[in-house]
C-alpha cells in the first residue's frame, strides 16, 4: 500500500469550520473558505500548515 498524501492522512485537518475553530481569529479579516487556501490544512502530527498534496514518513491512511 502506497503512503497517502496529506489529503488522505488521518493527521490532516482541512475542514474550514475545524480550521476556524483551531484559529478563531482567522475569520475576522479572512476565511478558511477562501479560494487561495485551496485544500490546505493543518497537520496535527507535525503541528504545521501543509498543502493537501504534501506527504511525509509519518503519514497514516484514514
Amino acid at each position, binding site marked *: 500500500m*502506497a*503512503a*497517502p*498524501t496529506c*489529503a*488522505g492522512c488521518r493527521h490532516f485537518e*482541512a*475542514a*474550514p*469550520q475545524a480550521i476556524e475553530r*483551531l*484559529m*478563531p*481569529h*482567522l*475569520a*475576522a*479579516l*479572512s*476565511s*478558511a*473558505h*477562501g*479560494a*487561495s*487556501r*485551496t*485544500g*490546505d*490544512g*493543518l*497537520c496535527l502530527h*507535525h*503541528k*504545521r*500548515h*501543509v*498543502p*493537501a*498534496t*504534501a*506527504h*511525509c*514518513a*509519518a503519514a497514516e*491512511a484514514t
Partner: protein
Amino acid sequence: MMAVETQMSDLTAGGIQTVRTPPLTSAFWKKEDWWAVILGLGLVAVAIALFTNGASLNWLAVIPAKWTTPDQLIAHFAAAWPRYLAQAAVWLVLVSFALTALGYRLRDTVPAFIFLYIVSVIIFALGQWADAIKYNLEPPLVALVVGLLIANLNLLPRRLDAGFRVEFYIKLGVVLLGATLPFTLIVWAGPVALLQASIVSIVTFLVIFATARALGIEPRFAATLGVGGAVCGVSAAIAIAAAVGARKQDAAATISIVILWAIVMIFALPFVSSHLALPAAVGGAWIGTSEFADAAGFAAAQAYGDIAATLHLGTGDQSVAAFTLMKVVGRDIWIGIWAIVLSIIAAARWEDTGIRNRWDAGEIWRRFPKFVIGFLLASILITLVAQEIGKADFGKAATTDLVTPIKNLRTWAFAFGFLAIGLTTRLRDLTGMGLRPVIAFSTGVVVNVALGFILSVIVFGAYWSHFGS
C-alpha cells in the same frame, strides 16, 4: 477498497510512492469565492434583464435617504419599509443558500443575518445624516466600532459568527463593484496599479523577512510574516504558511499581528488622507498599497471616499475603485506565484521539516482569488451593455435604472462586511504574537506606508488624481 483505489492516482514525489485523494474542501461549491461570483453575477444579470425590458431593480435596492431632521428620516422609513422588508428577505435567501452550501446551519445563519441587516440599516441611516462626517460618523468606521463593542463585551453567542462571514460579503461587494466600473477604466489603470503594487509588495516582503531573520526568527515564520504584510494580509499568511510548512502557532501569531495593524490602519489612513486633503482616488490608491487585508482596506477606502466627497476632493467611488485596482488586481492575484517561489526556496534552502511538498504551475490557478473573475466579468458585462445601447442613450437612463441599483446593493454587501469585521474581531483571540515578530512586521509597516505614500501621492499622484474622473 478497489473502488476507492480506482479513484486515486498514484504519484511519485521525492522518491516516495504516494496516493492522492482530492480533498472535498477544495470543491468549488465549498469556496466562498465562487458563491460571491454566482450571486454577484446573478444580481447583475437580473439588473440588466430588467433594464433592457424597461424596468429596474431600484425598488428593491433601496438605501436610506439623506436627511437633516429626524422627521425626514422617519418619513422615509414610513414610506419605504415594504422595500426594506423585501430587500432583507432577498438578501436572507441568497446569503442562507450560500452559507448552507459552505456547511453552516440555518439556525445560526438566519438570526445572525437578521441581526446584521437591522444594525446595518441603523448605521447606514446614521451615516446619511447631513452632519455625519462633521462628527466622524462615517458608516464603515461606526460599523467597526459598534461591532467591536458587541463582540468584545460578549453580547452575542459565538455561534452567530456563522452569519458574520466578512470575506463572503466583501467578495460579493467586489463582484458588484465590477458592474459599476467600465472595463476600459480597468485596462487603463491596471498596469500602473500593477507596477506600483509590485514595487511595494516586494520591498515590504524583503524588509519584513530580513528584519525577522536579523532578529533570529526562523525563515518559515519570517516568510509568513512577510507575505502577511506584502500581499493580502491574513489570507496570504494562511496560504503561504501551508506552502512553506510553517508551524501552527507562527501562522496564528502572524494573523494576530496583521489584524491589529489592519484595524489601526482603517482609522489612520483615512484620517491622515483627509488632513492632507488628498484627492479621493489618490487616497484610495495609497490605502490600496498600504492596508493589509481586503476587508479592512475596503472599510478604509469607503470611509475616505465619504470624507473626500464631503470635502469636494472627488467621489466615494473613485476612492473605492482605485483601492480595488491597487489591492485586488495589483497585490492579491499574485498569491499563487508567491506560494510557488517560497515553497521552492523552503524545500531547497531551509531546515528540513520531514514534510515533502509537490508544486506545479497549476498552483497559480488553484490559489487564484476567484472572486476577481466575477469582478472582471461584471465589468465586461456592463461595458458590453453600454456599447450595445450606445453611449448617448446609456448615459442618464442606465445610471439611474441600472448602475445605481447595483451600486446600492454593493454598498449593502460592503456594509454587512464592515459590521462583520467588528463582530468577529475578539481581542482575546489575538494571542501569541511575541515581541520580535511584532517588531519585524511593524518595521515593514513603516516602510510600506511611506513607500505607498511616495508612489501614490508623488510619483503617480498626477495619474491617480485623474482616475475615474
